[in-house]
């Protein structure tokens, strides 16, 4: 997020795109509701009528995968209504003419046809967003999990820059990060192309700094992303894997390919707190300690680095992942002698400019928001105050890219996958929690009542849900949350693993898989 969570409650207009915020980021949703209570306007872009959409001033119920035409259409309205922030565009951005020329060539009728949203609604949303002094955009995986995810994000950036809705307090572009420490894992360089702090592995100067600090020579080219590793199947260049606290055998798309890739490994080691679907096929499983049994830090979606404190000793013979990694490294002839997690953070601060002022003694009580450049620096509640990381913000015109798998006569439904309030990701933790299993014991397939009628399906009936890659049995719930022709279900449940069905296609730049669109069909089960 470029903003802090609490800034959202002071925004005048909040545009939420591709995020089921009430279910997945309850505290952000709370700020949005507080803002709406004090008079802010809410625009929701979502193919589903999510709980947030019910409170929206304008709900743009687009066809899944038509974000770019919608956002371009909004920008065109902004130009036509003369609502662009000319001073901001002039002083802080570049390549504006390319964007403007593209927008003036748009055919608005085509945009209405592609998105399924009326011109009136597009126009109302655009005017609301552009007229306010403080508009904020929150987006989540509904934007990024498409083959055009990078372009979707660029289109949002174009919209924000065109109206000058960045750089100020309560104003910005906020990707909501999903897991407790997904922000931190990225910051720490658990990515194939960058060292900690997003420093490129291909940059010789950066690499030499890490080589000096770690006293080794380091590989020069970027590595493979997760689905490149788990989808290579029989051609897999990967022979051995070490998986720490992840469950690709349930979380990754196109599970058939994932299973084949894991079956072709010579060796798999997994560290986890439970015997996940992935740990069950490993050659070695290390029992890991939970967050209550170790010290460390998590970084939340607003870039706040916060302490995790130990409450109890590790259960059984389990050990923290920190201890597992250092012990394994020592066995491989590269000792990592750290006395504590705090000492690891000192090394991180030394090598990572955005974390250079993060020290444990400074983190009580409420942490620090990076970038935090030195011991005196108080952290950064919102980003891009005087300039963007690259200098001027660059407009890049983007155009519609249809989803990788269109619907057809055989697979007529668009299947969208997502999450629920009472379960979490692959359920490794949440399904061990009695209250959550009481509230959300099984996966449900959301279908519009009209479609259910066509197929003669009743509520709570078990149906077969199939795509070109696989099929599962799943219970149906009738709801107008989804539009006719769309289906929605969650991926938490191994016994109804929807990722058997999802497509392997991914965005060519971000390598983010298209989990939000695949063509599917439903069939009544024989009774």
């Amino acid at each position, binding site marked *: 997020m470029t903003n802090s969570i609490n800034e959202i409650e002071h925004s005048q207009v909040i545009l939420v795109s591709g995020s089921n915020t009430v279910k997945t980021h309850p505290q952000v949703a709370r700020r949005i509701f507080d803002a709406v209570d004090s008079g802010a306007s809410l625009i929701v872009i979502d193919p589903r009528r999510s709980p947030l959409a019910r409170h929206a001033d304008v709900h743009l119920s687009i066809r899944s995968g038509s974000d770019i035409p919608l956002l371009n259409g909004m920008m065109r309205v902004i130009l036509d209504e003369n609502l662009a922030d000319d001073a901001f565009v002039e002083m802080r951005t570049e390549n504006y003419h390319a964007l403007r020329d593209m927008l003036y060539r748009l055919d608005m009728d085509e945009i209405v046809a592609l998105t399924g949203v009326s011109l009136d609604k597009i126009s109302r949303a655009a005017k609301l967003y552009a007229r306010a002094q403080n508009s904020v955009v929150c987006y989540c995986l509904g934007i990024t999990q498409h083959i055009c995810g990078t372009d979707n994000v660029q289109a949002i950036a174009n919209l924000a820059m065109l109206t000058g809705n960045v750089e100020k307090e309560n104003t910005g572009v906020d990707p*909501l990060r999903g897991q407790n420490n997904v922000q931190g894992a990225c910051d*720490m360089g658990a990515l194939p192309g960058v060292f900690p702090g997003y420093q490129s592995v291909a940059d010789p100067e950066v690499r030499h700094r890490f080589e000096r600090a770690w006293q080794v020579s380091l590989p020069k080219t970027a590595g493979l992303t997760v689905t490149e590793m788990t989808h290579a199947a029989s051609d897999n260049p990967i022979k051995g894997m070490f998986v720490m606290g992840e469950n690709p055998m349930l979380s990754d798309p196109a599970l058939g390919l994932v299973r084949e890739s894991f079956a072709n490994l010579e060796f798999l080691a997994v560290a986890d707190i439970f015997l996940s679907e992935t740990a069950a096929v490993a050659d070695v499983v290390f029992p890991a300690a939970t967050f209550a049994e170790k010290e460390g830090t998590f970084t*939340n979606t607003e870039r706040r680095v916060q302490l995790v404190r130990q409450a109890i000793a590790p259960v059984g013979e389990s050990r923290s992942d920190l201890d597992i990694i250092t012990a394994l490294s020592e066995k*491989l002839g590269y000792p990592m002698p750290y006395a504590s997690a705090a000492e690891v953070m000192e090394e991180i601060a030394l090598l990572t400019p955005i974390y250079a002022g993060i020290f444990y003694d400074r983190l009580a009580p409420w942490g620090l928001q990076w970038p935090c450049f030195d011991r005196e620096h108080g952290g950064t509640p919102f980003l891009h105050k005087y300039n963007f990381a690259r200098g001027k913000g660059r407009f890049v015109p983007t155009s519609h890219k249809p989803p990788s798998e269109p619907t057809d006569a055989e697979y007529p439904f668009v299947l969208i996958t997502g999450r629920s309030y009472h379960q979490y990701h692959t359920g490794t933790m*949440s399904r061990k929690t009695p209250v959550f299993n009481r509230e959300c014991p099984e996966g449900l397939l959301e279908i519009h009542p009209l479609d259910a009628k066509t197929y003669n399906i009743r509520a709570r009936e078990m149906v077969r849900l199939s795509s070109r890659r696989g099929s599962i049995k799943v219970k149906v719930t009738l709801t107008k949350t989804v539009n006719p022709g769309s289906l929605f279900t969650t991926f938490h449940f191994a016994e109804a693993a929807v990722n058997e069905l999802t497509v392997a296609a991914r965005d060519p730049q971000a390598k983010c898989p298209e989990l939000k669109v695949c063509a599917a069909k439903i069939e009544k089960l024989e009774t």
Partner: protein
Amino acid sequence: MRNILTTCVYCGCGCGLYLHEENGRVVGASPSKNHPVSRSNLCVKGWHAHEFIHDSSRLTQPLIRKNGVLTSSGWDEALTYTAKAFRKIIDKTEGTGIGVLASAKCTNEENYLIQKLARAVFKTNNVDHCARL
């Protein structure tokens, strides 16, 4: 009963919460009043964030697959076995044959160390996590 201030393990909001510890077990969770995000409030996941900790199916010993079955072992045996298996693949493929998945559930320090292990010891940049999923 001791109250330990920590950070929630579920979503990216990062609420501050207290874990309640009694006789070596975590028996409850409650929100921090002054934490800038939680402000006296937790979602249902936060209130129950402690419940999986003492579930009877927790892994408590290292396991090694022997004759096709995962079998309990000691730490030293499991670590030595793993190090040998990885060493073989590192030597054969100069590192390109190893893949490492870090975790959005683990701490910054653990993610830092696992990418260091991948790059410095396994000699590969094949390190990623589920950020895209």
